[in-house]
């Protein structure tokens, strides 16, 4: 009984560590295979025919359709930030600096992150559910049996499309987020459009914009990579698909924040 009390947590911890390692390893392998298969999918003469049309279809599905939601969310966040900051800035007599703060916060951090989180719910979940359903209905087996590698045919276009579209969405989010701040400043704080814009442009350096975009690209690959991995590893029918979808959203959001922290700290030490 007593030995059980001691061994049980150790076994559980061991199992947990092993699970985490095999998960991370699996995702790593998937990314490696994707990188290897990507050139073949897009440049090889045969792959090209389907590769580009697949990529295009995925870009529309992942990116274009999520523009309105990303815009709505980030506009609200820009507006919220304005309201929150205004009293403090007023106290210091620096209300006009509101554009600087919101600009940097949105371009460096909030634009990419909010776009990524919306995209996780939007594209990540649907990719995991779609690929999971294909596993359950033997479609993946059928692809393999026709000598069509699922990584090249399914994963490559999704990962590339999400990465590219995530960068585009971040640009949209940057602009709309600033517009949200601008809107509140104009109508509630009495700062004119022109003044706000001038402050924004002087405060933001190209580096703020670029670091945000570098992060966005990594976020995009992460969202679709995790979704594909969890989708491909579905077992056990419809319930398995549901589990994979939930796990995709939860794990991706956690991973996004952790990766964000890593990048931000590296940028900080590099002085970017």
């Amino acid at each position, binding site marked *: 009984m007593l030995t059980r009390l001691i061994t049980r947590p150790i076994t559980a911890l061991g199992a947990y560590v092993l699970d985490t390692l095999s998960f991370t390893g699996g995702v790593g392998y998937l990314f490696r295979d994707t990188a290897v298969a990507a050139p073949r999918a897009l440049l090889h003469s045969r792959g090209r025919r389907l590769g580009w049309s697949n990529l295009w279809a995925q870009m529309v599905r992942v990116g274009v359709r999520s523009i309105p939601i990303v815009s709505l969310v980030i506009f609200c966040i820009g507006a919220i930030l304005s309201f929150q900051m205004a009293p403090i800035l007023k106290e210091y007599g620096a209300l006009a600096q509101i554009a600087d703060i919101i600009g940097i916060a949105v371009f460096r951090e909030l634009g990419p992150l909010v776009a990524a989180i919306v995209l996780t719910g939007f594209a990540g979940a649907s990719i995991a559910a779609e690929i999971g359903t294909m596993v359950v209905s033997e479609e993946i087996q*059928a692809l393999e049996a026709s000598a069509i590698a699922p990584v090249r045919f399914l994963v490559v276009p999704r990962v590339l499309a999400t990465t590219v579209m995530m960068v585009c969405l971040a640009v949209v989010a940057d602009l709309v987020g600033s517009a949200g701040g601008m809107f509140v400043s104009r109508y509630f704080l009495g700062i004119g459009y022109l003044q706000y814009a001038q402050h924004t442009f002087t405060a933001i350096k190209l580096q703020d914009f670029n670091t945000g975009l570098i992060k966005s690209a990594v976020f995009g690959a992460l969202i679709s990579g995790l979704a594909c991995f969890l989708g491909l590893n579905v077992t056990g029918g419809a319930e398995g698909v549901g589990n994979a979808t939930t796990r995709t959203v939860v794990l991706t959001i956690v991973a996004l924040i952790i990766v964000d922290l890593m990048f931000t700290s590296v940028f900080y030490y590099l002085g970017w």
Partner: protein
Amino acid sequence: MPEIAIEVRDVTKRFGSQTVLNAIRLDVQEGETLVILGGSGSGKSTLLRVMIGNLRPESGDVIAWGKSICTMSDEQLADYRKSIGVLFQSGALYNSMSVADNVALPLREHTDLPEETIDIMIKIKLELVGLREASTKMPAELSGGMKKRAGLARALALDPKILFYDEPSAGLDPVTSAEIDELIIDLNEKLGVTSVVVTHEMESAYRIADRMVLLDRGRFVASGTPEQMRDSEDPLVKQFVHGLTHGPLTDRRRGGQYEVDLLGGEV
């Protein structure tokens, strides 16, 4: 002596601690229709997946036209898979594509044919399975039997030398099931393809088989022509082939552990 297309050599496959295939050994001869029989859980579908290279056995080997598919490079395995066609249990159509696109996918992926030629080939393949008028339909709009036909047309896309069927009559009514059987015989005669059919339906097995193999719990039990199987004196073969309610298969299921189990293992 007929040529051997595929040779399964002592294949053993485990899932975790469970041995699903135990030293299975069989030959598929060129041009024949081989039916692999077995109850649920006998390992017959697993054997099919090993033969098409989707699962790797723990030990043993599968030799296709003289080459081991278990030790092949990815490119060689891809070439092997282009020379086979597989009809999965559910049809396994790609649900996001129309029937025509399903059939066209292997052609678009593996050949340089222009679209006009592919169009013609789609029509030929669909006509072979009697589904030409459904080419623009989506898989969700098809009945079970039509899905299998469409899956079969796709399996035929690259003119395979050998066709694998996983439970072709599963989930179909007797008439549709008989139609699919007719199709299997037809393709075997018209195109001369070798067929490997995994099933547990004796009626359909007798219709299509040149030779039968019976598996039980991952082990080879017997093989022979339909007549030899029908006349077999082996109690296990007899029970399975004739669908009897008494015999070694059912005795085993009622195993003597019941009392022990009920009394919590303290007898």
